[in-house]
């Protein structure tokens, strides 16, 4: 790892101030992606601004019929929250399936979405549930927040403060993890809104990161069952193809994972 300067911010305002004073700074969440990247010398920020001790960025609370989750909340805290388990069981099970127990004790929801790894789990939940990302500057709909592979709408000095999830009538997530890395080769989040509308979002498979499957959404609106999507797959031309799996293989995985998620959502 190249040299860097570590700072701990006590408030969102202080984090922004420290970032403004840095040459090439990065906000540090749990560091479960950023630190390995720095160790490989693929990233060399001059300054790290640790935002995990900021009180206003921590914790989970009820918000209308949904939940609001502070950006510095760990995956283990989301997975273990009774409120999340009751309100959005799909989100709790997704958080409990990220990485391994030690990674879940450190990794945060804000860090995960700000990195927008195309194989990360959280982006699928945010898009399918129609979440709102609250940053230090504004509020963004999840679909406007994720802009491409490892790309978000965040500006350099903008930090995620919390994520607001509306309630849902049903939610579930199914992923096919890569056997070695445990990252999703295809992960599908299915959410049935309280108005009956269905949203399906896919992670792990798309070349531009998370995307919605509108053909599945239409089919599920009339018939919320695994059979409704059995014949629907994304266009393989738009999918990732690498040593872990071809685009055609991933296209099929999306259908299979969608069926499993729908079955789990009930």
């Amino acid at each position, binding site marked *: 790892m190249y*040299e860097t300067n*570590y700072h701990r911010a006590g408030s969102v305002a202080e984090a922004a101030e420290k970032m403004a004073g840095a040459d090439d700074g990065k906000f540090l969440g749990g560091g*479960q992606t950023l630190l390995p990247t720095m160790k490989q010398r693929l990233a060399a920020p001059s300054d790290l601004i*640790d935002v995990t001790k900021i009180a206003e960025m921590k914790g989970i609370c009820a918000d209308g019929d949904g939940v609001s989750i502070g950006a510095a909340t760990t995956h283990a805290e989301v997975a273990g929250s009774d409120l999340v388990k009751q309100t959005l069981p799909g989100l709790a099970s997704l958080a409990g399936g990220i990485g391994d127990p030690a*990674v879940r004790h*450190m990794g945060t929801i804000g860090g995960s979405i700000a990195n927008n790894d195309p194989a990360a789990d959280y982006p699928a939940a945010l898009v399918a549930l129609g979440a709102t990302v609250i940053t230090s500057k504004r509020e963004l709909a999840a679909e406007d927040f994720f802009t491409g592979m490892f790309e978000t709408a965040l500006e350099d000095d903008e930090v995620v403060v919390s994520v607001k999830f509306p309630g849902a009538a049903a939610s579930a997530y199914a992923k096919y993890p890569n056997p070695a890395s445990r990252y999703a080769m295809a992960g599908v989040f299915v959410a049935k809104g309280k108005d009956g509308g269905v949203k399906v979002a896919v992670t792990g498979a798309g070349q531009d990161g998370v995307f919605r499957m509108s053909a599945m959404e239409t089919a599920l609106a009339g018939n919320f069952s695994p059979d409704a999507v059995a014949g629907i797959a994304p266009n393989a031309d738009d999918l990732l193809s690498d040593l872990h799996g071809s685009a055609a293989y991933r296209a099929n995985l999306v259908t299979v994972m969608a069926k499993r998620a729908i079955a789990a959502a009930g």
Partner: protein
Amino acid sequence: MSKVSMVLNGKTVSADVEDRTLLVSFIRETRGLTGTHVGCDTSQCGACVVHVDGKAVKSCTMLAAQADGCDVVTLEGIGSADSLHPVQAAFREHHGLQCGFCTPGMIMTAVDMINRHGAGNLDEATIRHELEGNICRCTGYHNIVKAIKAASDQMAGMAQAAE
């Protein structure tokens, strides 16, 4: 350089270290506690697992500076050669190791898993699932799983006896 202070195995320690110092380097090199191992250095193998504020974390994927002000426990902090922790004793009893390199991380992960689920509440499937972040290249895991199950059940018995 920054001054980093933490409670390490019950003792307050501090040192001036480079900001890029990993927690595992602080533990092994600055403090000379070599029970915590570095296997892969890429967050995969779990040989470096320690407890920070009571939670199992991979100390190769955390800066010492992030642990400033925290309570850190390593393998050396849970038992000694004269007085083994029940999990350590169970690993010896059930031969939950061959070369022993992954053992410190396995034991720290096992203690964390028993803490979270409650002693006596672990079945084989749960233990295997919870070991997702710890790699052993010798044993095939069977005796590790047996050791954790035995320790969990024994600790439940100890808790009951204490009541």
